[in-house]
C-alpha cells in the first residue's frame, strides 16, 4: 500500500511538473515579442547565432568539445562560446559522451531545467546509439540519448573531431532558421600555408 501511494504521489508530481512546463511554454516570451516588434525570422536568426551551450561533459567527447572552444578551432566565431554553468541560462545541451543509467535522470533534469527555446546535440557514437557499448552484455548504458530527450542534431564519430562539432552547430543553425548561417561565411584558404623551419 505504501509503495502504491508513493507511486501515486510521484505521478502527481510529474503531472504538475508537466503542467507547469506547458504553462511556461504558453507564456513563452518569444511568441509575444515576434508579434510585437520582431518578425519571426529576425528572432530565429538571433537565436541561431547565439547558441549558448551548457558546461556539461560526460566522457571523452567532452575533451573534443573543450578543444572546439579553444584556439585554432574556436566556436566563439559563431557566437557559441559562452558556456553557461547554469541550465537556466543556456540554449543548447551538447550531450557529449556515454549516458549510463545512473546519469540518465541527471540528463533529463538538466534538459527540463532549460528555458523554452532549447536544442540538443547528440555528440559521438555513444550518445547516438550506445556506440561500442551497444552489445548483448550491456547492462548499464542507455543506447542513444534520444531515448530520454528529443535530439536535434546527431554528430557521428568516436569521438567526432572539433570541426565536426562546428559543422553540427552550423547544421543546428540551419535547422532553426531554415537557411545556412551565418551570413557571409568566411572561407578557409584552399591550401594552408606550410611554415618551413
Amino acid at each position, binding site marked *: 500500500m505504501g509503495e502504491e501511494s508513493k507511486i501515486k504521489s510521484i505521478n502527481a508530481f510529474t503531472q504538475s511538473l508537466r503542467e507547469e512546463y506547458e504553462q*511556461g511554454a504558453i*507564456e513563452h516570451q518569444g511568441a509575444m515579442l515576434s508579434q510585437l516588434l520582431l518578425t519571426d525570422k529576425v528572432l530565429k536568426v538571433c537565436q541561431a547565432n547565439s547558441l549558448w551551450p551548457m558546461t556539461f561533459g560526460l566522457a571523452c567527447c567532452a575533451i573534443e568539445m573543450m578543444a572546439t572552444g579553444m584556439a585554432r578551432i574556436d566556436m*566563439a566565431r559563431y557566437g557559441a*562560446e559562452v558556456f553557461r554553468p547554469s541550465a537556466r*541560462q543556456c540554449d543548447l545541451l551538447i550531450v557529449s559522451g556515454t549516458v549510463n543509467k545512473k546519469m540518465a535522470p541527471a540528463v533529463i533534469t538538466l534538459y527540463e531545467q532549460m528555458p523554452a527555446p532549447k536544442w540538443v546535440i547528440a555528440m559521438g557514437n555513444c550518445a547516438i546509439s550506445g556506440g561500442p557499448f551497444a552489445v548483448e552484455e550491456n547492462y548499464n548504458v542507455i543506447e542513444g540519448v534520444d531515448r530520454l530527450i528529443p535530439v536535434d542534431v546527431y554528430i557521428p564519430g568516436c569521438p567526432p573531431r572539433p570541426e565536426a562539432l562546428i559543422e553540427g552547430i552550423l547544421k543546428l543553425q540551419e535547422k532553426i532558421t531554415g537557411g545556412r548561417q551565418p551570413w557571409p561565411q568566411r572561407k578557409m584558404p584552399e591550401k594552408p600555408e606550410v611554415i618551413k623551419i
Partner: protein
Amino acid sequence: MQQIIDLIQTYSLLRMLIAFLVLIGIVFLNAIVMGYLERKIAARIQRRWGPMEIGVQGWLQMILDGVKMLAKQLIVPRDADRFLFRLAPLLCFTPVVMIFAALPFSKALYGINLHIGLIYIIAMASINVFAILIAGWSSNNKYSMFGAMRSVAQNIAYEIPILLSLLSVVLTTASFDLQKIVEAQSGWLWFAVYPNLFVAFVIYLIAGCAETNRAPFDLPEAESELTAGFHTEYSGFGFGLFAVAEYGNLFIMASIASIMFLGGWNGPFGLASGPLMGAFWFLSKVFVLMLVMIWVRWTYPRVRFDQLMNLAWKYLIPFSLVNLLITAFLVKMI
C-alpha cells in the same frame, strides 16, 4: 513670479526625465560595448578570434544575444519567493541608472549636480549588495544562497578601503561635490600624481575590482564551485539585467576612479576640456580603466575566500587608514 518658478520646476523635471531616458540608453549601450570588448579581448588573450561572423568582426553579436535573451522563457522556480525573485534584477539595475545621473561627464554634461554627490553615489552603490542578497535568498537554491552570502561578506569588507581611500581625496579638496573635486585637479595636478593619493588610487582600484565582483575576486559567481552564484536560477532577461548592471557598476567604479584621481574631464597637458572635449577625455579615461579590469580578469586565477578576506582586513584597511592619517597630516601642514 509663481509662474516662473513653476516653469523652472517643470523644466528641471523635464530635464531629469530626458536625462534618465538617455542614461538608461547609455547603461545598455555600455553593457553592449563592454560585453563585446570583453569577449574579443578574452579571445585575443587566449589566442582565439572571438565573435567574427555576425557583422564586421562580430560587432552585432551582443545585440543578437540581447534579443535572444528577451525571447527566452522566464522561469520562476516553484519554491522561490515569487515577488522578491522578480524584484531582485530591477533592484540591481535601478541604482546603476540613478548613479549615472549624478556622474559629471563634463563641465556642462550631467544629469544632476549634487553637493554631496560622492556620498550619494556610494550610498546607491551599496544597494547592489542588497539586490544580490535578495536574489540569492529568494531563489531558494543552495548555490544562490552561498553566492549571495559570499557577495555580502566581500562587499562589506571591501567597502571600507574604498571609503577610506576616497576620504583622503575629500580631505584634500574639502568637498563632496564631484564637479568641485574635478575642478580642483585642473591643469596637470591630477590627484594620482601625489604620492599619498597614488597609494589611495591603487587601494581603490584593488578594492573596486572586488566591489564589482569581478576579476580575481569573482567569488560570488565562482563557476567551478557555485554553478553560477547568485543568478543561478535566473533565465532570460533576469540574468540579462544582472549582466547589464554588472557592466554598469564597472563603469561607475572606473568613472569614480577617474573623477577622484585622474582629473575627470580635464584633458592631459592642459588640453582643451570644454563641454564635449571634456566628455571625450572623461570617457577615454574610464574606458582605459575598464580595459585594465578586463585585462586583469582574464589574466589572473581566482583567489581563495580566506585570501580575499585577509587581503581586505589585514592589508587594504590598515594601509588605507595609515594613508588617511598621512594625508590629514599633510593637509594640516601645507
